[in-house]
C-alpha cells in the first residue's frame, strides 16, 4: 500500500528530478525524508511496478527522430493476424485496440523521417490495409500529471 510519503514522491518526481551530485539528498529536504529512505522507496515502487520508469524522458522528435500516431480499420476476423503483423515491426512502440471503426492505433518511432515513411508503406503493404498517418502538428501544454 502507498503511504503519504510514496504519494508525495510520485507527485513530486513526476515533475522534476534534480540534476546535481546528490539529487536524493536535495529532495529529502523538500520531502521531509532522508536520502536513504527516498532511494529505498523509489526502488520498491519500481520493483512493484507502481513506477514504470525513473530517468530522463526523451522527446523523439526533438532528438531528430520521427514519431507518429497511426490508425487502421482492421476487419474483426483479421484482427489477431494484423496485430501480429504490425507488432512485428520494431518501429511500432505502442499499439492499442480501441472501440471504434478505426480500431487499431499505434505509435511509430524512427530515427529519421525517411524511415518513418518507409515503415508506413511497409505496414500498409504487409497487411493490405490503408494506414492513416496522424503525426502531431501541434502539442498543447499539459499542466497536470497523475495525482497519486
Amino acid at each position, binding site marked *: 500500500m502507498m503511504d503519504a510519503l510514496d504519494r508525495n514522491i510520485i507527485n513530486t518526481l513526476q515533475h522534476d528530478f534534480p540534476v*546535481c*551530485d546528490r539529487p536524493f539528498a536535495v529532495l529529502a529536504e523538500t520531502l521531509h525524508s532522508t536520502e536513504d529512505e527516498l532511494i529505498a522507496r523509489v526502488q520498491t515502487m519500481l520493483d512493484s511496478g507502481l513506477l514504470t520508469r525513473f*530517468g*530522463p524522458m526523451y522527446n523523439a522528435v526533438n*532528438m531528430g*527522430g520521427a514519431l507518429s500516431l497511426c490508425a487502421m480499420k482492421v476487419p474483426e476476423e483479421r484482427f489477431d493476424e494484423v496485430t501480429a503483423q504490425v507488432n512485428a515491426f520494431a518501429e511500432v512502440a505502442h499499439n492499442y485496440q480501441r*472501440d471504434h471503426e478505426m480500431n487499431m492505433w*499505434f505509435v511509430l518511432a524512427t530515427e529519421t523521417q525517411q524511415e518513418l515513411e518507409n515503415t508506413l508503406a511497409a505496414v500498409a503493404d504487409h497487411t493490405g490495409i490503408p494506414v492513416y498517418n496522424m503525426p502531431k502538428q*501541434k502539442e498543447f501544454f499539459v499542466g497536470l500529471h497523475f495525482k497519486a
Partner: protein
Amino acid sequence: MSACTSKPEDRVTEMSQTVKHNPLKKDERQLAELDRRIVLATQSGLPVVAEPYRIIAEQLGINTQLLMDRLETMKADHRIRRIGVVPNHYKLGYTANGMSVWDVDDTFIDEAGEQLGQLDMVTHCYQRPRFPPEWTYNLFAMVHGHDRDEVLQKVSQIADLLGSKARKHDILFSTRILKKTGLRLKDKG
C-alpha cells in the same frame, strides 16, 4: 557536492571555453556523438542510487559535471521533456482511459487546445491532421479516470467548455494493449 541551484548557462559557458580551440564543426559532431551515447546509457532509466549521474558518467568514461551539463542542455532545448518518474496509472487507480477526439474549427484550435491542456486528467493534447470524410477530428486529448463514467463525465465537461467551437466529438476507449515497448534508440555500436 554541487548545488542544484547552479545555473546551467554558467556551466555551458565553461564547457564551451574548454573546447574553443577546436573547429566548431568537429565540436558539434563530438557533442552530438556524446549526447547519443548519453541517450543510449539512460533511455532505460537511471540507477536508483545516491549519485546516479556519477555512475552513468563512469560508464561513459566522462566526468560527472560534463554529463550533468549535457543533460541540462538537452532539457533546455527540449530533447529531454523532463527527468523524473512515470507512474503506472492503472496501479494508481486510473483504470479507464479514453482518447477524446474533436472536430474544431481551425480558427479556434489554439484556444481549444490550451483550454483542454489545463484540465485535470488530460495527459496529452495534440492537433493532428484530418482525413475527410472518414476522419474529421483534428484535436486529440487523452482523458483518464477511475472508471468509464468518470471519463465520460470529463468529456462532457470538455464539450460544454468548447461549446460551438467543437462541431463534433467522439471518444475511443482502449479495449486492449497490443504492444507497449516504449521508444528506444537503436545502438549502432
